[in-house]
């Protein structure tokens, strides 16, 4: 049985395809550990209450709100943050023609404020732009960008888990995230691009 009874313990997390050792309190939430201990600041703190989705990461292929997951719960599971898009196992499956390019080859400004994580030990190929990122760029699916990494994570999981998702399923996945700049229509359009439906 896995047990963490001390005030602080060293755990190993599998993040973006890499094993990372980190000292945590069993009461620490995954969001804080990713940001403060591992320097992966792509997952954003918003409400810290499960409502906004800014903190969304992928756990074993499914989106989770990292403000509502203990870091110790993630032991033994695969975590992917926005920095890991494009890392081994972290590519979005896409039917879009502009998918999976290297930086500079897609139209528009690729700086969404979430980065593609190159150079901070997260496993992603330098310069790679994942199809979900390319679709967001093409659809201008962000304004301030604070919600973007959460939306990217949900859309990535959607493309991989439900590539033939019906309209109501897409709606229901996207309803998990809030965008204070109201980029909802553009995000919806990005999903269509990513799924090769536009």
């Amino acid at each position, binding site marked *: *049985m*896995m*047990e*963490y*009874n001390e*005030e602080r313990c060293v755990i190993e997390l599998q993040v973006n395809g890499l094993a990372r050792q980190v000292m945590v*309190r*069993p*009461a*620490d*939430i995954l969001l*804080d550990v990713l940001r403060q201990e591992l320097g992966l600041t792509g997952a954003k703190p918003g409400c*810290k*209450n*499960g409502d906004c*989705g800014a903190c*969304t990461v992928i756990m074993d292929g*499914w*989106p*989770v*709100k990292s*403000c*509502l*997951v*203990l870091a*110790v*719960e993630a032991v033994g599971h695969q975590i992917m943050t926005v920095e890991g898009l494009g890392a081994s196992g972290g590519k979005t499956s896409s039917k879009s023609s502009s998918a999976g390019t290297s930086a500079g080859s897609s139209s528009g400004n690729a700086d969404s404020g979430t980065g593609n994580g190159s150079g901070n030990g997260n496993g992603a190929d330098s310069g790679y732009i994942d199809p979900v990122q390319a679709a967001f760029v093409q659809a201008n699916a962000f304004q301030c960008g604070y919600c973007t990494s959460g939306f990217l994570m*949900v859309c990535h999981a959607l493309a991989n888990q439900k590539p033939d998702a019906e309209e109501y399923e897409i709606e*229901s*996945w996207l*309803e*998990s*995230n809030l965008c204070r700049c109201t980029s909802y229509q553009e995000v919806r359009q990005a999903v269509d691009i990513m799924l090769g439906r536009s």
Partner: protein
Amino acid sequence: MIPVNFAYCRPGTPEEAVQAYEGYEKAGKKTWYYGGGSEIISMARVGSITPEAVVDLKEIPACCELKEEGGHINMGGALSLRAIADSQCFPLLGKAVGRIADHTNQCRITLGGNLCGTIIYREAVLPLLLAEAQVSLQGPSGVRRLPLQEVFDGRMQLLPGEFILKVHVPKRYASMPYFHVKKAPTEKIDYPAVSLAAIIEKGRLRIAFAGICTYPFRSKEMEEALNDTGMTIEQRLNKAVELLPEEPADDAHCSRGYRQLLFENMVGQALMELSKASEAGAGA
């Protein structure tokens, strides 16, 4: 950040979970069984609860089971709401849990966590009450299996150290005509003002509610009145309001008057569904 420290363990069997729970309690630690953690984390973060140990149930295979056996659909207490909805094993339950929180949270919130949570809604219980579900409770003296209605009195009445191992739904209820409607005050994704689940069995309505009162309930007296074709629809609706187990809740989320208005409207819709089903039955 959660401002208190607690111990965490992840047992692999139901027996280990009970042993761990008892071990922590013996050591003087206030212990909580832990499902999806969404309520425990959010309440601990704001200091409403101060757990000293949590026992995570999610990796106990029996708690994650979803299978049909002996005329029942067996669902583990740590199954996520999303797994239940996607399986379509019990469409009414799938519909009800598919309206709890949002898709991402549904991937974490567990059936047992929703049934045992402290918020007043616990919407997953409605279809289970209608379908005469049973629960298997694992505790220090083993497993006891009994009708949910015997241990759900507005909230789960568990003995110390017990947790929901499985929920068993008689399979025949899964294919009966049903009706579900949830109305929230403003947004689609929100706690309900009123949530209604109904099953039509042999031309009779079974009905359960969350949100209207401070706890979820199924009322057989109310069902009797609603099924009484000797009364007009209006009389039946008035009787249903009279038979509420307490006055409609009145809080910052939704006023009493608005809750009652929604309740009457939604029960009216359920009665229309009932008469449609009866007509279809008569025409068949």
